[in-house]
C-alpha cells in the first residue's frame, strides 16, 4: 500500500510494462556483445532444464563417448595400468596383423555373405506382409494376423535360437520328423556349416518381420483413402493400386528403414550369430563381431580385437553414408 502511494501515478504503468520485456527490447541497439550476453543469460535461465537433461547426457558421455575415445587402444598396446591414453603407441600394427592373418578373408566373406543374405531375404518380407494385410477386407482377420505376426517381437533372441535348436534337432526335432515323413534323411542343421546362414535368416524372418510390418502398416494408414476410392472407380485392380498407390506411399519409410538396415548391416544380429555358433559350424558362423568377442573377451587381446571392431564400425559407417548418398540422389528420404 505504501509503495503504491509514493510512486507517481503516471509512471506506474510504464514500469510494469517494461519490467518483463526489458531484456529483449534492449538488444537491437547493441551488437554481438550484448547478443552473447543475452545468450548466456538464456543459458543461465534454463539451468533447470540442463539439470533435467544431465543424467541422460551423462549416460551418453560415459557409455557411448568414453568408449569412442577409448577406441584409440586399437592403435596402442593396451595395458590396464596405463589405461586408454598412456599405453604405448604402435600405430597401425594391429590392423596390419589382422589384414595379414589367415582368418581375415574368411571373416570378411562370412560377414558380408551373412549380412547380404539376411538383408535381401528378410527386408522385403515385412513390406509384402504389410501390403497384403492392408488389402484385407475382414477387420477380424486383419486384427488376428497383425497380432499373430507381431507376437514374436516379444520373444527373446535366446528363446528363438533355443526353439531353433529344439525344433531342428536331428533326433527329436519337429522339422526332422517332417523330413523323415517325406522320405528324406534327417539334417544336422546346427552341425553342418552350410545350414548356418539359412537358419540365421529364417529365424530373423520369423522373429522380426512382424515388427517392421507394423511400421509399414502405420505408413500405409497415412495414405489418403480417397486415392484408393478414386482408383477403384477408375477400374484399377488391387495389384494396380498396390503398385501405384501403396508402394509409392510407403517408399519414404522403406528408404529410411533400408538405409538404417544397411547402416547396421555388420552389427545387427551379432548376438544371434553368437548364439547359433557351434564348434561344428564355426567355419561359416565366425563373423567379424563374434571374432572380436572371442579374441577380445575370451582371449583378452584387447587392442587387437578393438582394432578389428573399429574396422567393422568404419566399414559400417562407410556403407551407411554411401547408401544415404544414393538415396539422396534418387530423391528419396535420406536419414542424414
Amino acid at each position, binding site marked *: 500500500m505504501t509503495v503504491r502511494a509514493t510512486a507517481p501515478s503516471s509512471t506506474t504503468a510504464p514500469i510494469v510494462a517494461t519490467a518483463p520485456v526489458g531484456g529483449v527490447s534492449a538488444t537491437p541497439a547493441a551488437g554481438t556483445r550484448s547478443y552473447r550476453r543475452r545468450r548466456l543469460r538464456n543459458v543461465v535461465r534454463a539451468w533447470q532444464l540442463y539439470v533435467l537433461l544431465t543424467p541422460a547426457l551423462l549416460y551418453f558421455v560415459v557409455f557411448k563417448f568414453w568408449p569412442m575415445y577409448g577406441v584409440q587402444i586399437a592403435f596402442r598396446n593396451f595395458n590396464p595400468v596405463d589405461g586408454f591414453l598412456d599405453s604405448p603407441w604402435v600405430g597401425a600394427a594391429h590392423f596390419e596383423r589382422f589384414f595379414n592373418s589367415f582368418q581375415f578373408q574368411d571373416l570378411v566373406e562370412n560377414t558380408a555373405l551373412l549380412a547380404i543374405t539376411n538383408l535381401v531375404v528378410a527386408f522385403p518380407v515385412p513390406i509384402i506382409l504389410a501390403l497384403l494385410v492392408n488389402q484385407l477386407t475382414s477387420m477380424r482377420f486383419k486384427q488376428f494376423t497383425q497380432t499373430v505376426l507381431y507376437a514374436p517381437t516379444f520373444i527373446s533372441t535366446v528363446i528363438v535360437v533355443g526353439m531353433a535348436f*529344439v525344433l531342428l534337432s536331428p533326433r527329436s526335432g519337429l522339422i526332422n520328423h517332417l523330413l523323415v515323413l517325406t522320405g528324406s534323411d534327417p539334417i544336422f542343421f546346427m552341425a553342418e556349416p552350410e545350414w548356418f546362414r539359412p537358419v540365421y535368416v529364417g529365424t530373423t524372418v520369423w522373429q522380426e518381420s512382424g515388427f517392421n510390418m507394423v511400421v509399414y502398416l502405420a505408413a500405409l494408414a497415412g495414405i489418403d483413402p480417397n486415392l484408393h476410392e478414386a482408383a477403384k472407380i477408375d477400374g484399377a485392380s488391387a495389384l494396380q493400386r498396390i503398385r501405384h498407390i501403396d508402394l509409392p506411399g510407403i517408399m519414404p519409410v522403406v528408404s529410411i528403414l533400408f538405409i538404417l538396415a544397411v547402416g547396421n548391416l555388420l552389427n545387427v544380429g551379432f548376438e544371434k550369430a553368437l548364439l547359433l555358433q557351434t564348434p561344428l559350424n564355426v567355419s561359416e558362423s565366425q563373423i567379424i563381431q563374434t571374432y572380436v568377442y572371442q579374441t577380445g573377451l575370451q582371449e583378452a587381446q584387447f587392442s587387437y580385437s578393438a582394432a578389428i571392431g573399429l574396422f567393422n564400425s568404419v566399414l559400417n559407417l562407410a556403407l551407411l553414408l554411401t547408401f544415404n548418398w544414393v538415396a539422396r540422389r534418387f530423391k528419396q528420404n535420406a536419414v542424414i
Partner: protein
Amino acid sequence: MTSTVASPAPDGTTGQRRPFANRVPDRAFNVLSVVTLSIAALAILYPLYFIVIASVSDPGAVVGGRVWLLPQGFTLDGYERILGDAAIWRGFANSVLYTTVATAISVSLTLAGGYVLSRRDLPGRRTITFFLVITLFFDGGIIPRYLVVQDLGMLNTMWAVVLPGAVAIWNLIIARSFFEMTLPDELREAAQLDGAGDFRFFFTMAVPLAKSLIILLTMIYTVWNWNAFFEALIYLNDPDKYPLQLVLRNILIQSDIASTGNLTGDLESYAETQRIGELIKYGMIVFSTLPLLAAVPFLQKRFQKGALLGAVKN
C-alpha cells in the same frame, strides 16, 4: 475425387478401358493374400503350439515323432523339475530385479531427456541433438565399452547389466516427439507467468500429462531388459547373478551343442538324461515366454503407437 486420382495413378487409362476386368483378378488376389497370410500365421503359431504340447508329452513320443496335434502320454515331469530347480528360480529373481531397476532408470532418464530436448527454446538444443545422433552411426565397440565398465568397477555387479544400455536413442526420440506434439507452448508460458520454474512445470504438468508415454516406455524397456542376455554374458561371471536369459541359454543352447557333438558317444548312458533333458527344454521355453506372450494382445496397441511416434520424427 477424379482429379486427385489422375496424378498418382498414371495407369488409370488402362483401367478405364476394361472397367469390369478387375473383378476376377481382385477376388483371386484376395484369396491368395488370405492364404499367404494364413500360412504365415500358422508358421508363427504352430511351432509355439507344438512346444507347448511337447512340454507336457511323454518324451519318448516327442522323440519318436508321434506328437503333432495333441499331447501324447500327458506328464508334468518337465515342469516339476523346472519349478524345483534353484538356479532357474534364482535366474528368474535376478531377471525381475534387473528388469525393474533398469526400467526405472531408463524410463526416468528418457522421460527427462526427451522433455528437455522437446523444448525449442533450449539453448544449444541442436548441438546436443547432433551429438546424440552421432551415437546412432558410430560405436566405440564391445571392447572399449567393456574396458570402461571395468574401469568403473562395475564388472560382476548388477550395474554392468543395468546401466550400459540405459537409454536407447530411439526411445529418446519417441519421448521428444510425444512432448512436442502434446504439450502446447502456451501451457508452459502460462505456467511461467504464474511463476512455475522448469522443474515445477516438468514434475507437476509434463509428467502427469505423459501417462501414456510413460506406460509405453515402461513396456518397451521391460520387454527389452527382460529379453537381454549379452551384457550379462560379458560382464557377469558369477552364476548366482545370472539373469533368466543366460540360464536359458546354458540349458537350451549349450547343452544341445554338447549332445550334437557327442552323438557318436555311448547313447545308452545318456538315454534317460536326454529324455528328461528334452522335456525340460520345451518346458523352459514355455515357462519363460508365456508371461510375455499372454500380454501381447494388451501390449500390441501401445507398441504400435510407439512405432508411429518414432516414425513421425522422420
